[in-house]
């Protein structure tokens, strides 16, 4: 075989190779677009359906067509004005109040615990972290009943006291969720603390003058997580709120799909779901940005 033949063979091979790679890439492109297209329809469809259903003029469940045929804005109006059976407006307000308090308390608790675990060294530190780890392995549902009895003994389960009860329940244990914040604080160089303490700062001053400003993205993340908890929780609220005038939004929406209510409240359930989802969706998008920012670490460059 001459060298000319060999090189011709190479070029031929390379040529078909490029050609093959090109067609294969085009096929892979087409396949991946088809896959993404089909899947995104599957992911979007239920959301679009809820949105359209909330404008449905025909309020009964189990209809003949998948999407509504006639649209109206009445469901939203009724949701907030028709308070005789279920007062969605007051549920919304109650959840909002709970959420604000939980947000504040949980941010404070998580920051304090994370700062102690990240910056200070004391004998109880390792045991504390291990205890929290072990506590996290008990199924959370297990304590629901017990928490109810304890709150009852404190006299917090009647009337509007349930608001206080829910604030306590959602925020009291949040100190245990310090791991992410601690990881973030661990990335802040200790030389900053040392410099501040040389300048005469106490530990508390280091905490609120140095560490807090640096932790801003994580604080936003934590605040939103705390704020969202009461909107998303269903189990605790159901165990503690026994009558309808104590309900939170999640319980109200769940109630609307029960047998006694579903025929009249189906469309209004969809409207309520949209009303709750929009602020949560916005907060979630903000949170995601800060989540990514905080994942990048505290010190850039």
């Amino acid at each position, binding site marked *: 075989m001459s060298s000319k033949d060999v090189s011709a063979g190479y070029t031929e091979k390379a040529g078909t190779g490029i050609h093959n790679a090109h067609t294969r890439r085009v096929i892979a492109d087409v396949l991946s677009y088809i896959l993404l297209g089909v899947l995104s329809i599957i992911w979007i469809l*239920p959301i679009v359906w809820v949105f359209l259903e909330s404008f449905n003029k025909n309020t009964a*469940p189990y209809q003949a067509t998948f999407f509504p045929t006639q649209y109206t804005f009445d469901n939203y109006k009724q949701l907030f004005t028709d308070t005789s059976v279920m007062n969605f407006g007051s549920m919304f307000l109650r959840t909002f109040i709970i959420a604000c308090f939980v947000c504040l308390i949980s941010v404070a608790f998580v920051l304090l615990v994370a700062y102690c675990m990240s910056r200070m060294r004391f004998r109880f530190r390792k045991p504390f972290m291990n205890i929290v780890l072990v506590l996290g392995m008990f199924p959370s549902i*297990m304590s629901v009943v017990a928490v109810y009895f304890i709150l009852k003994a404190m006299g917090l389960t009647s009337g509007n006291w349930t608001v206080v009860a829910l604030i306590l329940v959602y925020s009291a244990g949040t100190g245990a969720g310090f791991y992410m914040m601690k990881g973030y604080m661990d990335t802040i160089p200790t030389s900053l603390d*040392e410099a501040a303490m040389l300048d005469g700062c106490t*530990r508390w001053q280091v905490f609120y003058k140095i560490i807090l400003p640096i932790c801003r993205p994580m604080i936003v993340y934590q605040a939103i997580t705390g704020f969202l908890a009461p909107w998303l929780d269903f189990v605790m609220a159901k165990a503690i709120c026994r009558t309808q005038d104590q309900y939170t939004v999640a319980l109200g929406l769940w109630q609307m799909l029960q047998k006694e209510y579903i025929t009249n409240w189906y469309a209004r359930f969809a409207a309520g779901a949209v009303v709750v*989802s929009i602020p949560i969706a916005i907060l979630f998008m903000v949170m995601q940005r800060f989540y990514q920012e905080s994942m990048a670490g505290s010190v850039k460059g």
Partner: protein
Amino acid sequence: MATTSKHVETKKRKTKKVGADYVAPAPWTVKHAFQHGDVFTYLSCVIFGLSNLARKQIVKGILFLAVEALYIMYMVNTGSVAIGKLISGLYGTESKQVFNSYGIPVQTAEERSVTILLYGIMAVFFTAIFIWFWTVNMRAAYKAQYLKQTTGHAPGFVEDVKDLVDGRAYVTMLFLPAAGILIFTILPLIFMISMAFTSFDNNHPSHFSWVGFENFKTVLSNNGGQVNLHTFLSVLAWTLVWAFFATFLNYFLGMFLAMVINRKTTKLKNFWRGVFSMSIAVPQFVSLLVMNQMLDSNGAVNRLLQSWGWISSPLPFFTNATWARVTVIVINLWVGIPFTIMQVTGILQNIPADLYEAAELDGANWWQQFRNITMPYMIFVTTPYLITTFTGNVNNFNVIYLLSGGQPQPVGSTAGKTDLLITWLYKLTVDQGNYNVGAVIGIFTFIVLAVVSLITYRNSGSYKNEEGFR
């Protein structure tokens, strides 16, 4: 080598200033207090704060004394009675009709066993805290004596407060969060665990007593009863199968989708990611309730398929065991994949691109690149995430309870075919009032989780060298 020595150096410097992980015990321990204490320190054993008062730490001494007085008052008034009732059995008193001094019949207040149990446990709880406080008191007593002897001056109240915002700031900082965890996490857990040793079920809703390990025997044997070994094992097996599929299917399919979106030639990357993360933004209970409605035998999906003539009778989404199990796993994919995409995308982008270029030059195909570059890297980085997801799925109450409600449930059984340990526990306690066996199930769930995760956590790099990168 250079990096290690540098690391040691930083470590040394830190030991001096901030202190390493090990904290040397202070010279004032309870043991030392009894070995070297003077008469005031000894007497502090009974009269709290006496040693502090003797060294002119007036405020501190009074505070110690006040706590002791409060505890004694509590014990005399209610605590000792509560503990006594707790030990002597929990039966309490039933309500009965008696005649009062005017001869009018009245109902006496009944004392329910749950209340006795709760107050008894709280009394024990306070006593435990008091015993811990006693050690604090003893240490403080000896500390005052020690400092007085060595420096001639025990710190006054102002100095102590200054210490509490600086050197020992962790005391003030951790006080409220720790109290919250104690009262709303640990106390309920102890309360619930103690229920596992009582006869608190729907036959004894208000008056029950201690039964020892009877309930554990019930769950672990097949001698009749609604809750037996057979049900327990089948629920446990399904829980593990569910957690396995829910974790790994989500992980691999989510990673696959993230890789498809990450492909060099895929356009509109942010658009596709946005589409998938939209479902995260909708509250989970809303989307799960909607799914539950849609998959109902009269729901939108069945109606649509029937009107198209594809099926003649409704598909048994939640009425056939196998259908229901597959359905919850598939719906969970819908719920979980967006989370995986969110978590995984950043990590995928961090894999050095030259690894892939080198592999391509060596003629590795897509599958070989995935197996030899992507997978090892991903597994290395995401092991802690996988463990958390696995435990989260064992405890995934929402998806099962709101989606299938544990259906289908065979007649005469307490657990449905899609019930996890945790939803079974919820049904047993909240719905049926069988708190004792519910608590036993909870303890077993804890054991399963602890065995799985503690071993893996302890072996993971992030736990072992917490400060490795500082």
